[in-house]
């Protein structure tokens, strides 16, 4: 455990001393929240997707993709600078490294979530609309944890497989896809049969479940309910999380004795 915590401490220091974390991980979701609120105001408040209760779960889930980007950059940079190669010759094992990166990802993700929730709360006070209860906040955080874990391990995976020039591009493409396929900014219901495809991925179900907790309404004005979409959505969420965890451990270990 000492080695894991030691490595986590190093990773946390590295990240906190890099301004990118403040811009992308902590600042960007906050900016998006405010931006969509402004858009909603200027459209006369007629866009249910941009109401706080709908936006909050979407931004939380979407913000985790920036955690993925941060970790992918960190892992790929550590590989490029041969810092990791040096550590591979030490008594540290593959799980020390992975969990060392994971705990830092978890800290950033939870910090982001708290920032999003506090932002939502402040905006709701300003806009004089009701906000979710404390119990709903806790439930929202818990239900979004699997997506956080998925993104953390996906970041480790991308950083393991790609160099620091390629990893950001791949992450950027993924971030764009998540925004669309997760129904974050545009209603998935309006995509026709494509909605079915979105249900097989974990992003839309995760946002959907979040909106059930916040009692948000979809574009048709119908309140989200814990229906078949939400229940079946737990399957891709769980499968993606497990697959990313397993792949990360396997490929990172393989990379440790790779000649690349």
């Amino acid at each position, binding site marked *: 455990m*000492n*080695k894991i915590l*030691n490595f986590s*401490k*190093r990773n946390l*220091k*590295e990240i906190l*001393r*890099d301004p990118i974390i403040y811009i992308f991980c902590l600042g960007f979701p906050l900016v998006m929240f405010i931006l969509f609120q402004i858009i909603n105001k200027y459209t006369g408040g007629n866009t249910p997707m941009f109401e706080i209760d709908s936006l909050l779960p979407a931004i939380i889930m979407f913000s985790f993709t920036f955690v993925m980007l941060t970790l992918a950059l960190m892992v790929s940079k550590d590989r490029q*600078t*041969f*810092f990791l*190669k*040096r*550590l*591979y*010759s*030490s*008594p*540290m094992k593959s799980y020390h490294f992975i969990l060392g990166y994971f705990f830092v990802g978890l800290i950033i993700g939870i910090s982001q979530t708290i920032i999003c929730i506090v932002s939502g709360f402040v905006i709701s006070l300003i806009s004089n609309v009701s906000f979710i209860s404390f119990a709903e906040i806790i439930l929202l955080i818990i239900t979004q944890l699997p997506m956080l874990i998925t993104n953390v391990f996906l970041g480790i995976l991308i950083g393991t497989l790609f160099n620091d020039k390629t990893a950001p591009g791949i992450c950027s493409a993924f971030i764009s896809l998540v925004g669309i396929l997760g129904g974050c900014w545009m209603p998935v219901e309006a995509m026709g049969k494509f909605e079915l495809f979105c249900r097989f991925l974990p992003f839309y179900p995760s946002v959907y479940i979040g909106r059930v907790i916040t009692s948000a309404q979809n574009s048709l004005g119908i309140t989200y309910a814990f229906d078949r979409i939400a229940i079946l959505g737990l399957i891709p969420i769980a499968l993606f999380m497990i697959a990313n965890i397993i792949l990360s451990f396997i490929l990172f270990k393989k990379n440790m*004795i790779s*000649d690349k």
Partner: protein
Amino acid sequence: MNIITIDNVCKNYKKKKALDNVCLEIKQGEIFGLLGVNGAGKTTLIKILCGLSKKSSGTIVINNFDLDNEIDKIKEIIGISPQETSVANNLTVKENLEFFAHIYHKNVLEIIKELVDIFDLNEVLNQRAKTLSGGYKRRLSIAIALISKPKILFLDEPTLGLDVFSRRELWQIIKKLQKSTTIVLTSHYLEEIENLCDRVAILSKGELLKKGTIEEIKQSTKTDTFEDAFIKLLKDENE
């Protein structure tokens, strides 16, 4: 006593043989040099010895531990300073040393103080690693390699890119380290090998051309200088 025994080690990539039946013995307490031009196989051999790359065939025994089956025990007794920058750039010198010290559960404060004195890092202790000059980065890198008080220290091109003053300073430090640890170093610089090494192995295109002391190599090639001996060996190999 041999602390490292390398027996018929080969390393093959898809189209290339990086090491071809290399046989070496490295004695405890000596400074052993691996000399060769780019692509000779020096760094490949070092990486295999440190468990960073797998050999294709052959056997390696380090401090009586078999590399294939007891790599974890070997990792406890080796230290490596790679050719490339391999420190945590956003951490200070002190934080870097603390981080590596905690991996080995060593008496952190004591070992750091000792290394800071040896490598004269007091002035830069609270400076971030990425702001260090090349010379200080090298010193930090070698200091980190010594954190675990290794029995064997691998230095891959330790003075590459350094000015002549920094290089000479590092040579002094490396010579002092010989008292407590066996050192295997790779280098392009003949002068460095001559100044530091007790024995040398000359590699070319993955093959071992010659091994022995500088004098033995000069005598066997019937040359007056080590440089001439090195060039002659390479020329003969190409013919």
